[in-house]
């Protein structure tokens, strides 16, 4: 792991069990709402052992990272740029899930040539959150966490996942949600993250500005960010001449947990281009 000072705050990055090596290419992984670095464990650990530097970050104000939790996609994207500076990384691939996909998209637009590849996992634009869910995330977070876990899952029989065989991914995700929420005593990062998703308006402009190839990695049974909700971004990226790949896996919103190998293979193949 690495602890970096980003904008004056300690930032935790999981490195896949390997030491950061400036000579290797770097991939930055950005988690979604109520998640942390650990949702990427299998994919990051593999890449870290196959020629890549991996920086799977805990966003500010989440779990092991200090600082103010970002209240907008733009604010979080600025943090990603500062993270690359702090790590001394000139160019990196960005991989984001859900809210993290919007952060990665906005950061890629801002950082332009500094981003080699962009992977948007479980993405949508606009990423609207229903008023009921927004309200519940603020006032009834336990109820809202159960709702998003039901919406995120496509199966009662997930394959061996991040903890290996015997993992109950629904329970694992709920426990992580609770832990992340409890990690910030000042701000409800659940509500703040959802509000940031809901209010982000720059998606189509951002995808037009990126200069790198983009992979859309979607869940065919995703009820949180339905695959159809990514069509606008895919169309805009294609129309503006970007190199676009789309992979749709037969899973829900948590592609990394429900289809860990297929998610890894899609990212690995794309990064090799």
């Amino acid at each position, binding site marked *: 792991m690495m602890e970096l000072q980003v904008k004056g705050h300690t930032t935790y990055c999981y490195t896949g*069990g390997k030491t950061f090596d400036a000579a290797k290419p770097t991939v930055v992984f950005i988690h979604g709402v109520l998640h942390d670095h650990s949702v990427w464990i299998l994919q990051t*650990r593999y890449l870290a052992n196959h020629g890549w530097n991996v920086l799977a970050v805990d966003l500010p104000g989440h779990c092991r990272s200090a600082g103010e939790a970002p209240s907008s996609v733009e604010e979080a994207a600025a943090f990603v740029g500062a993270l690359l500076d702090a790590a001394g990384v000139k160019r990196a691939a960005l991989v984001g899930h859900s809210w993290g996909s919007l952060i990665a998209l906005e950061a890629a637009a801002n950082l332009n040539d500094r981003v080699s590849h962009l992977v948007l996992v479980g993405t949508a634009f606009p990423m609207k959150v229903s008023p009921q869910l927004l309200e519940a995330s603020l006032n009834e977070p336990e109820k809202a966490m159960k709702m998003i876990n039901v919406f995120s899952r496509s199966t*009662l029989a997930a394959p*061996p996942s991040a903890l290996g065989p015997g*993992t*109950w991914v629904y*329970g694992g995700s709920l426990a992580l949600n609770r832990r992340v929420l409890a990690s910030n005593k000042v701000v409800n990062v659940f509500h703040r993250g959802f509000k940031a998703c809901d209010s982000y308006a720059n998606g189509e402009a951002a995808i037009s500005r990126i200069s790198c190839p983009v992979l859309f990695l979607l869940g065919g049974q995703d009820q949180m960010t339905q695959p159809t909700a990514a069509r606008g971004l895919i169309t805009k990226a294609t129309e503006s001449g970007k190199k676009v790949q789309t992979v749709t896996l037969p899973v829900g919103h948590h592609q990394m947990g429900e289809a860990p190998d297929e998610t890894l293979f899609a990212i690995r193949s794309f990064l090799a281009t």
Partner: protein
Amino acid sequence: MPGYSDPGFDTLALHAGAAPDPTTGARAVPIHLTTSFVFESSDHAAALFNLERAGHVYSRISNPTNAVLEQRVAALEGGIGAITTASGQAALHLCIATLMGAGSHIVASTALYGGSQNLLHYTMRRFGIDTTFVKPGDVDGWRAAVRPNTKLFFGETVGNPGLDVLDIPTISAIAHEAGVPLLVDSTLTSPWLMKPFEHGADLVYHSATKFLSGHGTVIGGVVVDAGSFDWARAHATSGKFAELATPYEGFHNMVFTEESTVGAFLLRARREGLRDFGACLSPHSSWLILQGIETLSLRMERHMHNTQKVVEFLATQPFVSRVGHPLLESHPSHALAQKLLPRGAGSVFSFDMKGNREQGKKFIETLKVFSHLANVGDCRSLVIHPATTTHFRMTDEALAAGGITQGTIRLSIGLEDADDLIDDLKRALKAAEKAGEKAGA
């Protein structure tokens, strides 16, 4: 809103962890009787060993049939995952061995299964792990027993065989104040009667031999992690749990709390505990336990129905001096059971007969429907005399602390017709009473 998208208990009991087999279309869970699994390539092999990819390598560490059982019990308990073990005792040992080494200390309830008593009082002491035993209801006693080297609180949902209900909300709060987790043996209640995680427990284990399998056919255990205890924070505060929060040379220098924010315990328990101690479950045994779990709610409902009938009968018998079930207002845990176990406090309980040891012997030998053996949680009704069998190593003082006398009889109420069970008990009580009259008792 139970349904596929928000599954209820019965749906999970049938479906959690298992889908139709993608290769054969088999609807029931296949038994994967294989020691090992072919690697796709050298890279795949290396990635599995280094936890870069998830999958099965060797059945001591994991197996697809066992994984279904693990997911299913974790789902029913509301946990993040589980590990199956060779027995309930192996599950308890796995928890202890994962969390501590020599020089550590446990605070445990006095009301424990005799095998657990043996493990803590004798065997673990030989390995440098000390235990202080506290009466389950002695709240101040739990707090006072904490030492700087305490790593774990441990109790049973309902103590065997006195059915002292563990006040999990209170005891878990004391454990958490002390910066340690609460482990609960939930064997006698099963998740149908109580989910200890909902009340504050951090780890749960079962002797799956009992109600989970339910048919007296198989020995097995399972440990479930709630994912609620923050091992990293506890280590930062007290230095405890370095096993989970610092690099482990024995497994790629992995820091388990970094690999998984909520699943560090399960990672180490599988990667070290199953690997090195090796108390794994046979896939065939897993399958038998899964068969049992599919009807768990139906069976537990009938267990509770029959238990109520039998308890009510025994409570009216003049030759019975005490019936130790929280259904009765006279039981010290009655109020707590109403709160924590509204569906019932289990079907394993004890009662005391008047008369001497010989009359007790006559009682047991007269029973025809009840089987005299050392098990509980079978679909058949069972009976045993704890003082001479399951708890025979304990002193009178220790027996008394666990609510057991020389005249105590333990019953495990099965699924037979309640009237037949009552007739059987009636006949045996009469025979025991007559035996006393003949002897001039």
